[in-house]
């Protein structure tokens, strides 16, 4: 028996990839986690700092309640259980970008734990378990290319609230890792806790990768890959690393537990440091921060305030609204677009037609303008009206596209455009029949061709009718009338 190979899918490997992801997400609070400095991205280096986030002697951290609330919000959206108290610990290590010689983090009591996120086909999803979600402070950023022979540090990022989201090793392919990240990112966007931009570093990913023979349930030696700055590099790095591990094992070699760096240019992973040489972080409870109770009713209030989450929305789109997985993904992946789509539904538009319009006409316009949905000039109710005109057969699809163009350009009401331009579709059978007969009489050759069995000739005749009516004829009706006439007048 041979393994079937179909285009677009990889040859089945003799091994299985096992991946766990550690994702760092910067929270979108106005101010930093332990001081009141602003968190704006892209400011002049070291312009958003104060004695506290510079860790000057004698300064003390004061927890930003908003960061804690956002952490709880994200953890709830990831189906986590929430600790009864938020406790902070110190993670001790030295690095020039770490101002206090320790990072304030959460060690044994992460704010959220035992959560999950669904990936894959909504009809048959895979659940990736989330081990923990914890809150910590970001470090500064070392820059090695600013001055020759020296490193400099920008501390604007020092103290920006970070959420670390650690999955269980439940991910089984590079594609699934991408899928997980996509869904995770959507949860962050929907809950409003982060803008989750990988290119700005507000979403950072470390991958723990191992391989094992198919069918095995034993975990292999893990390597951790750092420096991944796009979903694409996550996929490539996992693919590369799994293949590398398998080759080492296949050649009878052994793997080391180590941290590896993804070399973006060469598309290879390179060993950084052995895990055995890893730091002893000497975690202990931060005595400067007292544990903060997270009362159950407060947590429930946050839970109740969560919007429909991307997973549920995706499921609804595919299972209830009968959209394709692809369309559902595209809509869910853009909360603004999905919101517009929801507004169309609320205004009475039919779901599949609405999705089709949003993902073709609307999206095309937005792409052409380089604009977001906020800048789209047609209110949802007005577009819904246009869809209704099509649905009711008042105008043809072709006409509708023209009306759409004008609505976008001038902000006009669809009915007004239809009237002004005389686009109302001719669905009057008697009126059309007259035109059909005229066309048939004027085109004996195509009529003969059709009768001789050349179906294409029908298209030409339809075209002639449409031309006579300047596109206003109901195409389905024209089709039906032509067939009727051509078969009866044999």
């Amino acid at each position: 028996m041979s393994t079937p190979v179909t285009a677009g899918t990889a040859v089945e490997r003799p091994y299985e990839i096992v991946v766990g992801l550690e994702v760092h997400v910067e929270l979108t609070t106005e101010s930093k986690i332990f001081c009141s400095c602003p968190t704006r991205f892209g400011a002049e280096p070291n312009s958003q700092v104060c004695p506290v986030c510079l860790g000057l002697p004698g300064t003390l951290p004061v927890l930003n309640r908003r960061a804690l609330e956002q952490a709880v919000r994200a953890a709830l959206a990831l189906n986590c259980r929430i600790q009864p108290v938020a406790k902070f610990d110190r993670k001790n290590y030295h690095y020039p970008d770490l101002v206090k010689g320790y990072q304030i983090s959460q060690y044994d009591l992460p704010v959220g734990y035992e959560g999950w996120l669904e990936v894959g086909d909504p009809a048959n999803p895979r659940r990736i378990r989330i081990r923990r979600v914890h809150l910590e402070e970001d470090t500064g950023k070392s820059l090695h290319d600013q001055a020759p022979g020296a490193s400099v540090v920008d501390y604007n990022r020092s103290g920006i609230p970070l959420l670390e989201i650690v999955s269980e090793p439940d991910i089984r392919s590079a594609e699934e890792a991408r899928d997980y990240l996509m869904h995770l990112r959507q949860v962050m966007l929907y809950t409003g806790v982060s803008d989750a931009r990988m290119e700005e570093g507000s979403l950072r990913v470390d991958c723990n990768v191992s391989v094992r023979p198919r069918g095995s349930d034993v975990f292999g030696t893990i390597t951790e890959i750092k420096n991944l700055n796009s979903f694409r590099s996550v996929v490539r790095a996992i693919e590369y690393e799994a293949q590398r591990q398998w080759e080492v094992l296949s050649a009878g070699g052994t793997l080391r537990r180590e941290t590896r760096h993804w070399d973006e240019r060469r598309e290879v992973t390179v060993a950084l440091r052995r895990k055995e040489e890893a730091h002893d972080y000497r975690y202990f409870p931060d005595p400067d921060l007292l544990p903060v109770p997270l009362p159950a009713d407060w947590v429930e209030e946050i839970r109740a305030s969560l919007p429909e989450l991307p997973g549920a929305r995706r499921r609804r789109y595919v299972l209830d609204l009968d959209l394709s997985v692809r369309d559902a993904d595209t809509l869910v992946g853009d909360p603004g677009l999905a919101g517009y789509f929801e507004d169309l539904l609320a205004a009475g538009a039919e779901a599949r037609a609405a999705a089709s319009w949003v993902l073709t006409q609307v999206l095309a316009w937005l792409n052409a303008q380089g604009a977001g949905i906020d800048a789209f000039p047609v209110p949802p109710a007005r577009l819904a009206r246009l869809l209704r005109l099509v649905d009711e057969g008042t105008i043809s699809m072709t006409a509708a596209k023209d009306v759409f163009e004008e609505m976008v350009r001038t902000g006009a009401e669809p009915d007004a455009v239809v009237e002004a331009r005389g686009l109302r579709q001719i669905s009057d059978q008697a009126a059309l029949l007259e035109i059909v007969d005229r066309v048939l009489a004027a085109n004996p050759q195509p009529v003969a061709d059709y009768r001789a069995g050349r179906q294409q000739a029908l298209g030409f005749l339809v075209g002639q009718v449409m031309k006579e009516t300047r596109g206003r004829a109901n195409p389905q009706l024209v089709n039906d009338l032509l067939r009727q006439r051509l078969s009866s007048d044999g």
Partner: protein
Amino acid sequence: MTDRPLTELGVVETAEAVRRGRLRAEEVTRAHLDRIAAVDGRIRAFLHVTGEAALARAREIDEAVRRGADPGPLAGVPVAVKDNICTRGVPTTAASRMLQDFVPPYDATVIERLNAAGAIIIGKTNLDEFAMGSSTEHSAFQVTANPWDESRVPGGSSGGSAAAVAAGEAPAALGTDTGGSIRLPAAFCGVTGLKPTYGRVSRYGAIAFASSLDQIGPFARDARDTARLLAVLAGYDQRDSTSAQEPTADYEGALTGDVRGLKIGLPAEYFGEGVDSRVAQAVREAVAVLKDAGAQVVEVSLPYTSYTLPVYHLVATAEASSNLARYDGVRYGHRTSRRVTSHGDLIARSRGEGFGPEVKLRIILGTFALSAGYYDQYYGKAQQVRRLIKDDFERVLAQVDLLATPTAPTVAFPIGERADDPMAMYMADICTTGANLAGLPALSIPCGFLDGLPVGLQLIGRPFDEATLLRAADAYQRLTDHHLRRPALAAAGAAGGGA
């Protein structure tokens, strides 16, 4: 206004005279600056004297009084500040080479409060490096002498502040107390020193030694002056998450002189092994004075007392190892001038050169106590026993209003005697660390003299009940005169006075 030298006046006396325009803050400040100039060459209490700024500030106060404004409850009172408390624009070194050139761009909350109350910061005082020590001999810059006997230590780590108050260089001072660093030097120098309840006074701006133990507190020459200072220092500060929302009391109003019915516990463990019997005797006699005034005295027991010192050293060194990690030579502080090969090398060399031996010893101990595989055995265990020690105090303080003990097991010891013997040095703290571990308020007042050296009485109270401690101390001081005695130095170098 008085025939006494201005350097002999207390906090309340000075402030009230300045407020009423009977004394000018500038004269007071000048008298103390003169006194410092006259005696500090011998006492070496100050690391930095802010003479010009103090005089300018004094003139502002005088101007305010002239305008009819009230500069506040500490109007014109010179205050010496331990050099681990941040003062904007004024060097704050923690007596460490590491911070020799550090000038904070901000004031500690206590400095803001002092300024708002009309006080005048007159200078920064010596301490054991990063407040780690019991004698002020571990300063990177100088050894402070005990004004009662210049061959002896002033106690530590706030030795400079205690010595300055004892020597008449300032009527008041700030210290920090992690394991006895206010009370021990108060005892050795014969002044009143208060460590408030943990959370009573904001720690913002105090260079951390051990965060869960550190408290800032005042030194003065008597309980009334101490009460006035506490009223200014105490209160919630949103910049310190561990500061308490608990309302403050009318500390001066609490000084009724009446101790009738007050229940004082004498914990047997504080009068036994390791404590000089003459010191124990002096303390018992002091308690007898309060008993004669109507207090009840009962013997009590704190069975976990023998664990306080080891638990203290585990907790304090562990926290210190982390708190001092920020001194890496990268952003501020000492940076090695040698060529380095990596950031690790930079950090190691800067720290190796910047820290003194006692600090290094404690960082190493604390790092070990927190390290993987030892955490449960050391730091974790210490936290558990700390809980038991706290329970011990809680149980006993449910039966009595306060505890009376010696502050230190001995009087001031000679300079050099214990400098190279950490264990002997640590023994000086056996009576004081318990209050830090339990977060309780405790003060030390002079209660007698042995061979011309002051003996300290320690009173330990219930959380946030500084008022009762001050009431008992004040009542005792109304009946005795130990707090009125001044070291012979005062007579020898009375340059600042007009006697």
